[in-house]
């Protein structure tokens, strides 16, 4: 369901078949990556299934990200074909200019000559799709080990990295989630997260697996908590899955004491730490709802989970990330690469069917993080090094303590501070810079940049410069112009000193 528009699964299937056939006509071959570049909509959901039906791998591009960054991703993933929308028509030339090797645009929501493709690019609009037959396209069947999608995530050197996930990866998680949260046909799942965010895998595919409805949350509602709360009620959502920050916004300003959300039965959250005082308040306001914390980097989709108990009295300072989901094994590993004793703090290693196939086109990084035959392992699955620091608590639940590197979260988005620094360093007046995370109660972290400039430089200018190159959530909110950046004895940016300074200023 997308606003006033609804599609049955039979209608979705027919539309996806037509799209899949058009993609085959456009020359898409088994295993090809096909970009998805449009606002979240019925067409975008159809696009995902259409790409899969053609035997392709879908690569969702953040519709809000600047063309310069998306062009780089399109070049990296070698996207010759995009399923896109007329709302993106203005961006197509910039995307090509930024290096996207696109030869065909498929635009399900536009009629010709309403939109025009840039020179040399073919365009398949509504008419071309309507001509296609609605029975399944004749494409070789995808196997479980084929790639289903590639999700691009912030990279520490300023180049986004493509996380490759197979059909099995998605299904292992979806099957577990459908079973664990009892998703059935009468359910209505919200779809809040954007499609380039792996939370959407639950929304779309758990709903499809159970024959339940998926209801797309109108984008603007995230700004207006009371309206969002009324929408959840009116849309009769039964299962909600999102990052905690939107739930915090809902607790603080959503008038939940009025809406009460009687139909809602389960709230799942993931992507960042949920401050327990807000979570506790949410649980008090919604006593009939089951709450679970799902945890896992994009590379593992979800690897552990924790069912939040009803607290009597004060809530604890934080909640665990819990125990591994079915089929997944987790290990806490020391600096020497060997498992540690229970209770000791080390790096989280994850093994199992939800673990990614590697980073697209980056053998070296894949080898460094996906370990084969780790500790003589014979399970057949590689072991993924998450970079997360964890330990087991006495009840066997994992506790998340932080990162080994400079990756941070803001509103559930994963941000490599080095990615932001790389963008700032491109500015001709920036001599050097360092970006740190300033903890925040609602959005987890805000970004602050320390900048050494060779010429007078305004914050406006740097904000504009960043947002031309980075998604907006990666643009620093605070700037401090300084004479030099503190460094450690090895010449690395001393983030700890800067973080401490940012907290006291």
């Amino acid at each position, binding site marked *: 369901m997308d606003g006033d528009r609804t599609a049955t699964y039979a209608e979705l299937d027919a539309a996806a078949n037509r799209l899949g056939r058009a993609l085959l006509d456009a020359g898409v071959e088994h295993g090809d990556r096909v970009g998805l570049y449009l606002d979240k909509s019925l067409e975008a959901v159809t696009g995902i299934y259409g790409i899969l039906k053609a035997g392709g791998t879908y690569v969702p591009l953040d519709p809000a990200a600047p063309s310069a960054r998306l062009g780089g991703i399109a070049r990296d993933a070698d996207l010759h074909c995009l399923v896109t929308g007329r709302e993106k028509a203005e961006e197509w030339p910039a995307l090509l200019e930024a290096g996207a090797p696109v030869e065909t645009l498929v635009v399900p929501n536009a009629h010709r000559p309403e939109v025009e493709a840039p020179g040399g690019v073919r365009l398949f609009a509504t008419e071309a799709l309507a001509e296609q037959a609605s029975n399944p396209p004749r494409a070789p069947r995808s196997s479980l080990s084929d790639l289903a999608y590639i999700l691009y995530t912030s990279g520490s050197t300023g180049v986004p990295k493509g996380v490759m996930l197979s059909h099995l990866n998605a299904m292992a998680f979806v099957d577990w989630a459908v079973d664990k949260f009892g998703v059935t046909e009468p359910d209505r799942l919200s779809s809040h997260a954007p499609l380039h965010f792996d939370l959407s895998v639950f929304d779309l595919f758990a709903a499809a697996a159970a024959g339940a409805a998926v209801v797309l949350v109108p984008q603007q509602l995230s700004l*207006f908590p*009371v309206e969002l709360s009324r929408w959840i009620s009116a849309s009769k959502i039964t299962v909600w899955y999102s990052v905690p920050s939107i739930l915090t916004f809902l607790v603080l*300003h959503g008038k939940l004491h009025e809406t009460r959300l009687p139909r809602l039965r389960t709230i799942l959250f993931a992507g960042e730490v949920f401050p327990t005082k807000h979570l506790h308040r949410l649980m008090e306001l919604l006593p009939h709802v089951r709450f679970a914390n799902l945890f896992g980097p994009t590379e593992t989709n979800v690897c552990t989970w924790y069912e939040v108990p009803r607290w009597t009295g004060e809530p604890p300072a934080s909640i665990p990330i819990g125990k591994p989901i079915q089929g997944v094994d987790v290990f806490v590993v020391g600096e020497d690469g060997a498992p540690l004793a229970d209770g000791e703090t080390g790096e989280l290693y994850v093994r199992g069917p939800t673990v990614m196939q590697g980073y697209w086109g980056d053998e070296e990084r894949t080898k460094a993080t996906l370990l084969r035959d780790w500790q003589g392992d014979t399970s057949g699955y590689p072991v993924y090094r998450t970079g997360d620091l964890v330990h087991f608590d006495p009840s066997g639940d994992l506790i998340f303590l932080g990162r080994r590197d400079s990756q941070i979260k803001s509103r559930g988005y994963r941000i490599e501070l080095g990615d932001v620094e790389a963008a700032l360093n491109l500015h001709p007046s920036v001599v050097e810079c360092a970006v740190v995370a300033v903890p925040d109660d609602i959005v987890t972290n805000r970004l602050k940049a320390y900048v050494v400039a060779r010429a007078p430089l305004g914050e*406006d200018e740097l*904000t504009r410069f960043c947002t031309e190159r980075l998604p907006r959530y990666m*643009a620093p909110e605070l700037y401090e112009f300084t004479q030099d950046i503190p460094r450690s004895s090895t010449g690395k940016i001393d983030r700890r000193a800067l973080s401490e300074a940012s907290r006291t200023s």
Partner: protein
Amino acid sequence: MSTEERIKDLLAANLQWGGSWADVDEDYPLLEKHVVDSLGMIKLISLVEEEFDIEIDDGDVVPRNFRTIRDLAVFVESKRA
């Protein structure tokens, strides 16, 4: 300075928006053009409260009060009245 001008300065100084502030007049569609995003809204509520010494009720945080700078100014004035 007029209420509209104060609001525009407040937005320009606090929202990470990549567009051109020179184009933003009183009737510029703040929501459609994504000048205000969800993080921006969280900040905007407390910034407007502070700047104009008003209290914004949860029920006031609706699109009709935030569509344009003019809408915001009308809303702020009604709260100050």
